[in-house]
């Protein structure tokens, strides 16, 4: 009896020992598994957290990027992280096209700034790529002309940002030297502008403006003063027999033929052209104001006059260039991105006041224009109420339906223009361009 008992005891002890060792080992394994599991969980959480680190693509450090940074300051959400990446606009357009057409959406930003004139081409080409954000703000709070380019089939995709209202920024010292006062520049035509430019060139040796042969923005500015565009409202291309375009092209050629313009091939050269004092005026959208102001040594030397109009009936001394809006891509983090935009650009009056005073950006958010900031007299522009003036001109901008192919047409046109500059007949050139464009966008 005793013998069997002790035998059993030994077996028990052996079993106990094995069990102990096994549980020790497996326990450890489980422990490490768990630890790994936790790590993974944390990792994924962290990556989600980083996913909450959203990205935004925009161009122009002094303007759009600055506006986004200001919006971040006004956004009271500690969990929200936004990385703002500066890219050239062309780069953004190219990358968006590459990314969206591949359909993977990999490496795409959450928020992207798109120029109003390009917006429709994106919205119509990639309808599922964008997230409708109409629920995050009230569209009626924004200038009417911004809604059409930023929406598609009744759904609001873009949050209207700045107005593209243009103005004629000019150097008072150069103009005075050429014998012109502010009044001489108010409500002029482009023909008069060329005359003034000729005088300026003669008197000061400075070019009146700087042009990029690859960017025909100036033509668009001119055209829109008459409410004309490359396309008609029904979307058909009208280059041939487009009086406004013809007039704009003649003006363009006159500027170059008479050596009244400097040329630049990229944005930084463009900024350098007026920051260095090489050009006397900058007839572009109001968004250039912060870049002009960036050269502090020129404070007080600048003023803004209304945009020259084409010498046509019904033309207004107001135009639009490159106003843009924010879009949210239909990827993870879209809600957070839309919420951020809605809380700042979509509804924050105070933010718009700071936007005007600190960045110089004029939004299209109507309630904001009642604020004091719009009355601000800008020292840099000789005490001119620049913002107020722009907001006045904004109301006069002739409505234009930009259509889908603005930039596509312009690519064709810019090549043709070289031949026109080379002596080709204007009508012939436009007929050729019309034929090319019709082939391309059939």
């Amino acid at each position, binding site marked *: 009896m*005793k013998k069997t008992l002790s035998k059993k005891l030994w077996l028990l002890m052996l079993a106990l020992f094995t069990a102990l060792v096994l549980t020790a080992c497996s326990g450890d394994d489980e422990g490490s598994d768990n630890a790994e599991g936790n790590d993974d969980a944390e990792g994924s959480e962290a990556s989600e957290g980083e996913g909450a680190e959203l990205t935004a693509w925009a161009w122009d450090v002094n303007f759009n990027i600055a506006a986004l940074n200001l919006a971040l300051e006004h956004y009271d959400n500690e969990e929200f992280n936004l990385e703002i990446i500066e890219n050239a606009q062309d780069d953004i357009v190219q990358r968006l096209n590459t990314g969206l057409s591949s359909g993977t959406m990999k490496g795409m930003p959450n928020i992207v700034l798109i120029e109003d004139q390009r917006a429709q081409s994106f919205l119509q080409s990639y309808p599922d790529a964008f997230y409708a954000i109409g629920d995050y703000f009230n569209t009626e709070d924004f200038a009417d002309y911004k809604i059409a380019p930023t929406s598609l089939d009744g759904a609001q995709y873009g949050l209207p940002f700045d107005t593209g209202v243009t103005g004629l920024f000019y150097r008072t010292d150069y103009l005075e030297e050429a014998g012109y006062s502010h009044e001489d520049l108010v409500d002029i035509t482009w023909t008069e502008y060329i005359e003034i430019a000729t005088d300026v060139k003669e008197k000061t040796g400075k070019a009146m403006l700087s042009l990029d*042969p690859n960017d025909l923005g100036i033509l668009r500015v001119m055209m829109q003063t008459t409410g004309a565009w490359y396309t008609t409202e029904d979307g058909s291309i009208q280059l041939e027999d487009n009086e406004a375009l013809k007039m704009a092209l003649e003006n363009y050629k006159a500027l*170059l033929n008479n050596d009244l313009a400097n040329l630049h091939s990229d*944005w930084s*050269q463009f900024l350098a052209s007026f920051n260095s004092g090489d050009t006397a005026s900058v007839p572009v959208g109001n968004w250039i104001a912060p870049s002009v102001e960036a050269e502090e040594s020129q404070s007080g030397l600048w003023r803004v006059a209304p945009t020259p109009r084409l010498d046509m009936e019904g033309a207004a001394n107001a135009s639009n260039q490159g106003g843009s809006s924010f879009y949210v891509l239909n990827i993870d983090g879209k809600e957070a991105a839309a919420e951020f935009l809605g809380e700042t650009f979509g509804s924050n009056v105070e933010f718009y006041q700071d936007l005007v005073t600190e960045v110089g950006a004029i939004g299209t958010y109507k309630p904001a224009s009642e604020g004091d900031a719009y009355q601000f007299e800008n020292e840099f522009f000789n005490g001119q109420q620049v913002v107020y003036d722009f907001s006045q001109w904004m109301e006069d901008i002739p409505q234009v339906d930009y259509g889908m192919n603005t930039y596509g047409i312009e690519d064709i046109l810019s090549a043709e223009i070289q031949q026109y500059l080379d002596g080709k007949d204007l009508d012939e050139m436009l007929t050729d361009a019309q034929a090319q464009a019709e082939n391309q966008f059939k």
Partner: protein
Amino acid sequence: MKKLIRFVQANNLFIKFFLVMVISIIAVSLFITYSSIRMSSNLFIDTFSITNSKVMDQITQRFNSFTDSIVSASLEVDTNGTIKQLLLEDHDNAVDKSTFYFYMTDEMDRIYSEVDPDDTNMVIMSNSNDIFNMNYIKWQINGHTLMNDPMIERVENSPNEIVYQYEDSELTNGVPMIIASKALKLKTGYIYGYLFFSLTEPDLKEFYESYTGVGNNVLLVTPTGKIISSNQDERIGETSPQLLSYAEDFENLDAEYQQVNVFDQDYIFLSEYIPSLDIYLINLIDQETVAENVTDTNEIILISIAIVSLSVLVAFLILRRMTNSISNLVHQISDMARYQFNKPLKVTGGYETRKIANAFNYMLNELQDYVQILMKTQEKQRKAELEALQHQISPHFIYNTLASIKFMIKQEKKETASDTIDSFISLLQSSISNADETITVEQELENLKSYVQINQARYGERIKVNYLVSPDCLDLYLPKLVIQPFIENAFFHAFTKKKSGYIQILIAQKEEKLVCEIIDNGDGMISERIANNTIKSKEKRQLFSGIGVKNVHERIQLRYGKNYGVEITSELSKGTRVIIKLPVNDEQT
């Protein structure tokens, strides 16, 4: 202290075994733990280095494809007639310039797509400082600054090559970048423009960053020892001649990797020279950090400790059990003598101790058996001796008696002589012819009377003998010659001073014992002479038979046990009293 020594002595075996066991368990586990940690980390480092040298090859390939794309892009620019023509022509007016700008950009756009995927920027500068910058965000440069930079001179000095250089000066607005530059020249040697490719450090980092990690660092080092790119941002811009010399040595080394000490730390070092960029690609692996992620030394040590303590505990229990039973056995065996080897050992403990105890007990039993057999044999022998003695009548007695009878006949005491002869005959008959060991009390009485008669006939009747025998005793048996020796003793020793007296013989049953008393009123003895229930006697006197007083007691005890025997009390000049206790036997045995 004494206690401790005693304890050590008591547990000597256990302590020895246990110490040996503990030391060997610890030694074995230490060795195994150490070697397994070492082996696993060595194995890991080996495989890690192999993987990393593959990674290095991949990174090198990326660099090569990068330089390839730069080479092919620059070739295209070089051979592009439009660009050549545009750069060679003078552009005096704005119209010309506009055409110039437009077509330059147009041509460059197409070529740029070759290098664009690497985030490389392409810049062409004309002799009149016109800049065509494909991605101004990456490198904002104006023609004036660029033209006056020493870089242009370097390019002009080696117009056939693509010159790579690292810049983080004002030229690049402080942004660290690699700039590849090439002069665009005609066959005559005239330089008509300059081509630049720039790649910022963050973009360069993307070539290899995905291969790096904590403790696994990649550095790009120029032949001057300057670190131009690294996933460790803080090292960028540092100059480390030490690192460079390691990299240069590594080229001539036929090894997968090398152990080095740089930045005050030990690293595994891999290096590859990228000739196209003229830089060294260096991979530094912090062995400790990387290996730490693989082998959790603490865990291994913890497991080892757990196993060691478990096995020590188990060893303790097993040993304790084993040695305890052995110690017990030893204790029992050493106590054996106290119990006269009669007490068997307790059979407990393990198999071995049980076997030992069993064997010991078996041996003990055998021993006892032998001893008993031996004792029995000895007893038998003694008995046989005594028996032989009691059957003899001493020849001296016969001779003396016969001599006495002869004197009686000579003195003509015919009656006495005849009585004596009768008695003698009766004695002889009883002792010689009767072979039985026991006789009845009556017969013994007869013998006594015959003996007394012979003695009285020889020595006179100054000593009288009285017999008081209880009648119920007459038929009881008693051993031969039990009483006779004491009467003989009384006759010859009790009456040396006193010349006359009497001897009384009383036989009765008392307390179920047959009690025979022999009482004399003679000289008595000093107590020294009485020992071991016999009477010491020096003299060698001829006794009636071989049996003297001395062995009566022994005989009785041998025959009947301890309850029976002889008791002697004596008093000087008063007499001696002998009590013989015998069992009540009414049958011949």
